[in-house]
């Protein structure tokens, strides 16, 4: 029973991982750009949620969309102002560009909000459910389910709508997309917006049950990188499966061999997978 409890909470966390990884995988897959500031996007979204709640007194119903909107704008600005230019440069420039951005965001938060951990009140979303003996915190349930819905929604947008089709067209063949009358730069700015917005939603949801600090993005980003590498670059379903798997593995290893070693296990697994399958578990060559 306890094991089941652990697995369920792993799945709920995993679906949040899946959501914030899907933004990263979208950008990575579309442009072969790694956003090293991804974790800091999550961090900013968490602070958006926190301040929306403490200053504006609004609940998740409002602060989740707010975080999505703000992060969408951030994504577009970052693409137009920085990424669009560094992708043309050497690989080192890409890494430096987004890493530099990460530092600026992280330490601007540090400077503005101090290093103190803050968190939203536990009871912001309901208490705890008891489903057939399984105890599930409402905040985690909300976060997990919503994340799952949004990840699947994002996949549907990409595969079932004209916009998604155009986004994919640009990543498949930029010139051919132009021949269709598609403006590649506009599509990629939108992709960055979407990627960042989904990250924003994920961050706001995580804020419901996770501590908030300027450096929280660092470890979360690593999880996202692992998820994306395992799931295959550019694959939202891959991110979903890998995200759930990582969530469960973390929860199980935390329960079975101790919390500190769960990261060790995840990173080791990641390295082993890269070693065996250099393009990820579900990646295509």
């Amino acid at each position, binding site marked *: 029973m306890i094991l089941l409890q652990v697995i369920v909470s792993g799945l709920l966390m995993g679906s949040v991982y899946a959501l914030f990884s899907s933004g990263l995988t979208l950008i990575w897959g579309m442009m072969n750009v790694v956003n090293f500031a991804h974790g800091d996007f999550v961090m900013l979204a968490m602070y958006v949620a926190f301040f929306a709640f403490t200053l504006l007194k609004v609940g998740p119903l409002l602060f989740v969309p707010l975080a999505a909107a703000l992060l969408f704008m951030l994504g577009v600005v970052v693409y137009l102002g920085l990424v669009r230019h560094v992708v043309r440069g050497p690989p080192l420039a890409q890494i430096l560009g987004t890493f530099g951005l990460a530092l600026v965001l992280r330490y601007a938060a540090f400077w503005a909000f101090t290093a103190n951990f803050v968190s939203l009140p536990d009871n912001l979303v309901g208490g705890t459910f008891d489903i057939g003996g399984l105890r599930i915190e409402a905040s985690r349930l909300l976060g997990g389910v919503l994340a799952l819905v949004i990840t699947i929604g994002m996949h549907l947008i990409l595969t079932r709508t004209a916009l998604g089709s155009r986004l994919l067209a640009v990543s498949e063949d930029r*010139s051919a*997309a*132009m021949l*269709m*009358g*598609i403006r*590649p730069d506009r599509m990629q700015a939108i992709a960055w917006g979407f990627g960042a917005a989904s990250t924003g939603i994920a961050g706001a949801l995580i804020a419901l049950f996770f501590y908030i600090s300027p450096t929280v993005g660092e470890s979360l980003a690593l999880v996202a990188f692992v998820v994306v590498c395992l799931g295959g670059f550019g694959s939202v379903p891959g991110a979903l499966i890998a995200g759930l798997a990582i969530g469960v593995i973390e929860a199980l290893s935390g329960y079975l061999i101790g919390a500190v070693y769960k990261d060790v296990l995840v990173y080791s697994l990641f390295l082993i997978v890269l070693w065996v399958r250099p393009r990820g578990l579900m990646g295509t060559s």
Partner: protein
Amino acid sequence: MSLLSVRNLSVRYGDLVGVSDVSLEVPEGGVVALLGSNGAGKTTTLNAIAGLVPTAGGSVTWQGADITGRPAFAVVGLGLALSPEGWRLFVQQTVEQNLRLGATVLADRKRLPVLLDRVFTLFPRLAERRRQRAGTLSGGERQMLAMGRALMSDPKLLMLDEPSLGLAPAVVETMYETLGRLRGEGLTLLLAEQAVELALEVADYAYVLQTGRTVLDGTAAKLADDEDVRRIYLGLETE
């Protein structure tokens, strides 16, 4: 007045010469063939007209307006569609998605189902495979899809780059029959082709390119009898 008029076009890739002096006229409703061997500059010419590669000199005039240097996404909206070399399909997406992408610039979205129907009537095979990924199609089907996709923007002028390349003879026949039908519907065509005989059968007028220049032009009937065509193609007696 010509629908499309290209004057002294030159394109350079860095310092490589893509084409150095190409001039051609495409009259409304006509079928013009661009002939020449590998590397003569046919593809470069079409790509430059479509706005895929920047021009280094010369001009492209469309319905009397200078469109030289417009980016490809703007050119297609004017009514010039290109089915590019190698098809350049979106292989991860379905046949229908590819076709719908072709209609991106369509202002009147109500026309979309009509155009889709037209393509499916022209190419019943595509209708059968509309939910299949483009990557799973055979060579002939890919060519149909590339052509269909270009038609979805409802162009006045359709440019085709090597429609017969790599296709089995029977498929080529069908392809050219379709071109004949499109022509009958009043579509203007500009095709680059290595298969001379075929191209001259369907075209009214042809230009022959050699090392980036238009070296010969004339009515299809005249060129079909021209000894120079063979010389240019096979590089005989060039000294």
